[in-house]
């Protein structure tokens, strides 16, 4: 749908709808773009096409444990991280101690999921810009991670694997071997990806100096994850506000430096994701080494979750940024209020601020570099 509006200007402005069925919007996102020639003067994102109101479901299902599958379905690309955030929030609210082995398995799962999610993000980002080959390469690797998940949890996308106080079941016997094997074979693939895409001059031309997000603006918009770190802010909840057992591992926080363009451009957000995969590998290796071999993963799982009135806001670092759960409990078996602060939702809200004045074709790159999952934006 194209509409041409003349507003007493020398040149008419054009309003174009991008989406909701546009391949580069990564789901059902509609952007109402106002153009002056090829230049974007204004973008109005329209969301809600996937809105299922999980918060209402959360308040009406049987009990707290039954909320976990809904969290999976928010960000379906990183379901493990969503579950991790929710169970941590509940454990902090109820003061439940989690066995060592469970903590390690959760961290390994969360980091594997982070790699899988970043692979998808950089793969589809390349795809948006016309690089088809890297997409196929990263999907091969992502497949291996999904195989590991499938062996332990029985599912490939929506796992429902973590539960309050523990895990649904112990990992598969081959888990340790498979994961070690994966990390060993995956490392050279990062280098391969770097050669294919990162320093490809066409890719750099399409991403450097594009969609620049200054650090101050990023903080004011409460951006998080690679979007914030791409602007050079060294902020990662795993390091700055450690949850679970992240304080035991040695890893770096990659930040954007404006290596090929301006600080905080699309390329910077992309490179942060690529470098983070390497850091996740480091965490997985250390966790595999320290993980206790024996232990009942269900020993601290409460038969029935009993709560008193209480309120908690707990946040964790998902591949897309800060995932917060605000839970209000009362004496009943169901949460009184459960709100998910979705990182994609917040990160998408800064799209109008960083796409003003860019070219229409660059808007595709900017949306891709924010890496949104609409299931999480709309909840």
């Amino acid at each position, binding site marked *: 749908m194209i509409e041409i509006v003349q507003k007493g200007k020398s040149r008419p402005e054009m309003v174009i709808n991008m989406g909701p069925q546009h391949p580069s919007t990564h789901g059902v996102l509609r952007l109402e773009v106002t153009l002056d020639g090829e230049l974007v003067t204004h973008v109005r994102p329209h*969301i*809600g096409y996937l*809105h299922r*109101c999980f*918060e*209402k479901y959360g*308040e009406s299902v049987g009990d707290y444990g039954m909320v976990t599958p809904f969290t999976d379905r928010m960000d379906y690309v990183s379901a493990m991280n969503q579950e991790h955030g929710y169970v941590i929030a509940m454990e*902090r*609210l*109820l*003061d439940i101690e989690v066995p060592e082995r469970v903590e390690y398995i959760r961290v390994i799962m969360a980091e594997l999921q982070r790699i899988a999610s970043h692979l998808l993000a950089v793969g589809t980002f390349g795809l948006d810009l016309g690089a088809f080959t890297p997409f196929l390469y990263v999907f091969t690797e992502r497949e291996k991670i999904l195989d590991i998940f499938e062996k332990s949890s029985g599912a490939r996308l929506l796992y429902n694997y973590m539960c309050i106080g523990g895990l649904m079941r112990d990992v598969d016997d081959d888990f340790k071997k498979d994961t070690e094997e994966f990390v060993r074979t995956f490392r050279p693939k990062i280098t391969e990806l770097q050669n294919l895409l990162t320093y490809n001059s066409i890719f750099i031309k399409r991403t450097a100096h594009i969609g620049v997000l200054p650090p101050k*603006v990023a*903080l*004011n*918009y*409460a951006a998080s994850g690679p979007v914030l770190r791409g602007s050079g*802010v060294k*902020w990662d909840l795993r390091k*700055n506000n450690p949850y679970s057992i992240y304080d035991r591992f040695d890893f770096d926080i990659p930040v954007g430096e404006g290596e090929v363009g301006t600080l905080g451009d699309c390329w910077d957000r992309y490179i942060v994701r690529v470098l983070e995969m390497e850091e996740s590998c480091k965490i997985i290796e250390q966790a595999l080494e320290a993980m206790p071999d024996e232990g009942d993963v269900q020993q601290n799982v409460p038969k029935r979750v009993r*709560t*008193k*009135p*209480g*309120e*908690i*806001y707990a*946040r964790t670092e998902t591949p897309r940024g*800060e995932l*917060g759960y*605000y839970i*209000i*409990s009362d004496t009943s078996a169901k949460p009184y*209020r459960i*709100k998910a*602060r979705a990182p994609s*939702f*917040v990160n998408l*809200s*800064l799209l109008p*601020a960083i796409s003003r004045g860019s070219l229409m074709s660059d808007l595709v790159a900017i949306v891709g570099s924010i890496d949104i999952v609409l299931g999480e934006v*709309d*909840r």
Partner: protein
Amino acid sequence: MAKSTQEIFDYLKAAYPEVDLVLESAKLGDPWITIPAEHWKKIAKFLRDDSDLRFDTLMCLSGIHYPDEVLLAIACHLHATEKGHTLAIKVKVPESNPNIPSVESIWKTADWHEREAYDMFGIIFDGHPDLRRILCPDDWEGFPLRKDYVPQESYMGINTKYTEVEASDD
């Protein structure tokens, strides 16, 4: 130096002796400070700009409905990147007059959060530049996350009522 909620409460009390601030907590979880709606914007600005507090990010803004007290509320979770402290704040308003000043001009991120709270709870944010529904369609009726919400029967000729489908034998 990170401050606790108690310390921040005392600090705010000293800065605004005329405002009726209340420090509250439940049996479980973290405490919060309740601020009267008419003073919210002024205190929000102070929280962001004061050199000892520096709450530069609004992590989350959620609406809440208390049907027993006939109240609507927002809960704001703030974070100071440099200082490292966090704070939870609640602003409560009566259901009949659900107006809360918008803090969009202080933290840009409040824009979409406030639109969501308006969409889901019908809280009206005074001074918000673009207060429209965000997740539901513009012509949706009612506020879904209120406890007494009754879904509309149909939308654009589509039946929205959930009906149990009986399982067939084959």
